[in-house]
Each structure stands twice: as C-alpha cells, then as structure tokens.
C-alpha cells in the first residue's frame, strides 16, 4: 500500500468560471462601488449606498428588487437569520438558563432553556434542577438542529428545538458552505434515496448522517447519542460521497437543495469517493449536474 500524493500546478488550475458561461440566465453580478441605478424613483436597501445621484453597491452580489426598494444580496456573507429558518448550530457556552450557540451569524445566538424539549418529552415548568442539569442535555461542542424563533433588536437570534424533528445531532459529518448557496425550500430535512439523511441548515451548515428510523426511538427529543454504534462501511461511503459532492457544488457556486445534491451524487458514481477531491472531478460533476438541472427545467 503506497501513499497517494497529488501535487498539481497552479497554472493547470481548472477554471470554474467556465460553468457560469454556458448558463443562459446567469444573474448580473455587481461589484462594490458599481452604479446599480439612478437614485430617482428608487429607495436604497441593504448592501447599497448613495453617492451623487446614483445608488451604488457596497458589497459584491446580485441585485434584488422589491417594488422600489433596491438591495444587493452579498455572495459571501455571514448568516442573516429569518424567523422560521432551519439551522444547524454548535453549542459554544452553557450559561444560566440559556446556551450560547454558534450559527455562523455575526453575533452568537441563544437557545433558552425554556425553548428546548426536555428528554422524555415532558411539558412542565423548568425548575432549578433542570438548570443544574443543562450540561447533561447539551454541552460545549454539541451540534443541534433548531429553528429560529425570534430575532432580537441587536440581531441576536433566539432558537428553539421544541419539536421532535429538532434536537441534538448524533454521528455524522458537518459541511460548511456559504449561507447564500442553500436554497430556501419547504423542507430542509431530507432522507435521500441513496441511504443518508441531510439537514440543509439555512445558515450554511449542512449535516449528513446515516438514516435512522425515528419512529422506533419513541419521542426522547433526540437527546440520545449512541456512541458505541459503528456506522457500517456502506453508509460511510454514501456519507463521504455526499460530503464531497456538496463541497464540489459549493466550490462551483451552485445552489444546494435536495435535487441538485441527488443529481450530483448520481453523476459522481463513476468516480471513487476520494477522487472527488480532485479539481477535474469537481468540475465534471458540477457540469453534469448543471446540465441535468437545466434539462429538467425545460
């Protein structure tokens, strides 16, 4: 068994921009300082400023227009939360009656003790005992899936997990992408046919895990982590392939949702899992996925 090493030259870098060229309806990108429109008859929104008589972009991104309101949505940004968003987040601190949570937004988010389902699914007032048990439920480093319940004035998000589909996450892989690449859909929890579940967090955190049969568990609120269970090799391969496919799509700045991920997964089958780390394979998979998505649109 030998070590696989692959050093390529920067002059051979695959130009991922080629993917955008054969897109028929590629959105217009604005760069900071570029004139978006004349000021008259329009209002400036997020990501814009007024200089002279023009509205200019202050971030690099695509224009969004709501009636007269012009705003530029940045391509790369931290997560800007909206109520009802599904997020995947990591506990950073245990505080009094609340957890500090990292959701990839500008400020740390909070998860109040009163907005979690206690193990066992009981509905009751949280007492002092519960406060003392907080680290038993969720400790630093733990990953959770949650929903944005409220946005405070300064922009802090308040999360809640009072539903059986949310809660602590067990074994799996976390993939981080730009939040703008995750497409907003009706559901962000998917049990893919290829044999794994994914949670597409609106905050750009994507969780891939082996599919578990939730009904058999009985509502424990998702606090059980079976650390002794060894994920079989077949499931592991599916998870690793999904991870690499998602990163490949994200590398090519393609939107992530169940269909695009599934197509990418199917197109990637001709490669070995570790080959999907190579630029050519990334480009090929993204190209074929884009092609299939376009065919489906027509």
């Amino acid at each position: 068994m030998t070590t696989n090493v692959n050093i390529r030259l920067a002059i051979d870098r695959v130009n991922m921009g080629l993917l955008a060229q054969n897109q028929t309806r590629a959105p217009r990108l604005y760069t900071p300082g570029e004139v978006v429109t004349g000021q008259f008859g329009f209002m400036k929104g997020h990501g814009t400023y007024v200089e002279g008589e023009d509205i200019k972009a202050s971030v690099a991104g695509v224009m969004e227009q709501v009636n007269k309101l012009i705003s530029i949505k940045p391509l790369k940004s931290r997560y800007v939360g909206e109520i009802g968003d599904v997020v995947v987040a990591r506990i950073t601190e245990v505080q009094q009656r609340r957890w500090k949570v990292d959701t990839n937004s500008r400020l740390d988010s909070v998860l109040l003790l009163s907005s979690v389902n206690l193990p066992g699914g009981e509905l009751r007032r949280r007492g002092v005992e519960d406060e003392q048990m907080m680290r038993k439920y969720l400790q630093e480093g733990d990953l959770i899936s949650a929903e944005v319940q409220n946005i405070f004035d300064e922009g802090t998000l308040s999360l809640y997990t009072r539903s059986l589909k949310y809660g602590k996450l067990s074994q799996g892989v976390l993939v981080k992408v730009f939040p703008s690449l995750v497409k907003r859909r009706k559901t962000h929890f998917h049990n893919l046919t290829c044999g794994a579940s994914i949670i597409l967090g609106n905050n750009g955190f994507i969780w891939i895990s082996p599919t578990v049969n939730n009904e058999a568990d009985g509502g424990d609120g998702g606090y059980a982590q079976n650390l002794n269970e060894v994920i079989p090799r077949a499931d592991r391969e599916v998870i690793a392939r999904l991870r690499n496919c998602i990163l490949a799509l994200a590398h090519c700045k393609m939107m992530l949702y169940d269909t695009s991920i599934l197509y990418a997964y199917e197109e990637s089958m001709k490669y070995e899992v570790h080959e999907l780390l190579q630029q050519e394979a990334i480009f090929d998979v993204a190209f074929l996925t884009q092609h299939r998505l376009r065919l489906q649109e027509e």
Partner: protein
Amino acid sequence: MANISLSEAEKTFILHGVEEDFRCDGRSRRDYRPMELETDLVSNASGSARLRLANTDVLVGIKTEIDKPNYLTPDQGKIEFFVDCSANAAPEFEGRGGEELALELADTLTNAYESPKAFDLKTLCILPGQQCWKLFVDILILECGGNLFDAVSLAAKAALFNTKIPRVTAALMDAGEAELLISDDPYDCTRIQIENLPILVTVCKIGDSCVVDPSAEEEECSIASAVVGVSKRNGKNYISNVHTIGEGSLHKDTMHNCILLGLSAAENLNNELVKALKLEESRVGSKHRNTIGFLK
C-alpha cells in the same frame, strides 16, 4: 491547530472511520489531499512558493543577504526560518496568539535543516571567515485546514528550489575587508540543490491507528502526533529529526510505526514535489511569467 470544537458523536464518527480505513472524505489512512503549487509568485523575493493543501494555505518568500559567518563555522552560510501566523487564518492568531505555533513550526524546520547532510550550509559560503549568504525563509500561514507541518516544509522546499542567488563574479580583499562584485545580469545566478532538503511528515495517531495528512477535524480527535523530518540522500531516505505534538505520549511501538509510515510517505511526497517543480520550470521557463496567485 485552529481551535475547532467537535461533539463527542462527531469524534466517534471520525474515529470509527479511521479504524475502517475510510476517512470522512473517502481517503484511506495513507492518502494526502490534493495540493496546488505555484512558485515565483512574489516578484520582490529571491524565491517564493505558495502551496495549498485543501484548506491549508502557505506562502513562503526567501530573501538572500550577505552576512559574516559565525566564528565557529567560518566556512558555512546561514539559514533562518521565520513563521508568521496570519490572523486571517484563525481569529486566535490575532496579536501574539499565533506566536507559540509559529515558534514550534520554525524550530522544527530549523532542526530538520540543521544536519549538514540534509542541507549543506557550505554551499552558501562566499569567502571563508569573511562573507557568506544568509537565507531568510519567511513563511506566512494564510489559512489553516490541518497538517500545517507538511504544507510548510513542502512550500519551503519549493521556495528554496525557486531561489536565485546572484552570482559573485569577483572578490577583492581591500585592507582586510572583503569586497564583492556581483553580476549585473539578474538571470545570472546560482541555484540551491534541493535533492537532500528535508520534508516533514505529520503522522497523527487517532485511536489505535496512524494517519497522514490529518484534516483540522481529525487533528482535534488525536491526542498525539509525530512529525518526522525526512531527508533523501543517494536515493535513500534518512530521518533528520522527530518532533511530537499534542499533549499525549506515544508508545515505543507506535512511535516506530509512525516513523516507518512517515518515511514511506515522505518518499512519494518528495518524488511528487520534485516532479511538479521540474514540470513547472520546464513549462514556464526561468524568465518572467504570469503569476496565477490567489484569485480566479
């Protein structure tokens, strides 16, 4: 290196994956992630290289200066390593936060290059006892995605390959002071022989198995790793230094396995690096060219 926290379940997943010889990204225990290399991209340095290993990004610049040799070693030049951990790589590096890691990296490299069989400082001598070349190897860490030691040593070696030392045409002795005449032609220069230069291989112990090229998440799961410095001489690999990182300790047998794994990994790593460097040089030539850099 960068502090990322993982939950117990994620660690378990990684651990079982390593035991299964199928890691989170589909690699086996002995595979490296793809790397990208570019040399000669900093125009005002004597030699430079940039290496990107997945998310780890390292830029190395080499500066040559004329210096006086040490009294104890009058016929040897000097080489100095300096590592700067940019705060862009991780917020913890801001201010003096990255200093400890930077020193550790620089010391490990200095140790690896210390042996005259790994890097012969005599080639840097101009006039014994009077003048010598001093190489400043400045390493800038732009992004941390795990496995810094390997990336840094490969980039340093690539930059040394690219280094052009001006040719000294004549040396005059004037009242006990040496005076050097240096060639005017910027392309008239000497190169450094890189065949023997050491590279570092990090062998990370996760659970009961050893892996090469750990990602940042995998580093988080390991309590101890061994960095093996390997230098090639006459077609054979020799160990130039060994350094352990992490708070844990390594058993004698594990250490032995780590070193063996490091030696065999270094063989391929070295071959691929030299191949890539030679290919780049033959494709672009030694004169000026367009740099690719970071964008595109």
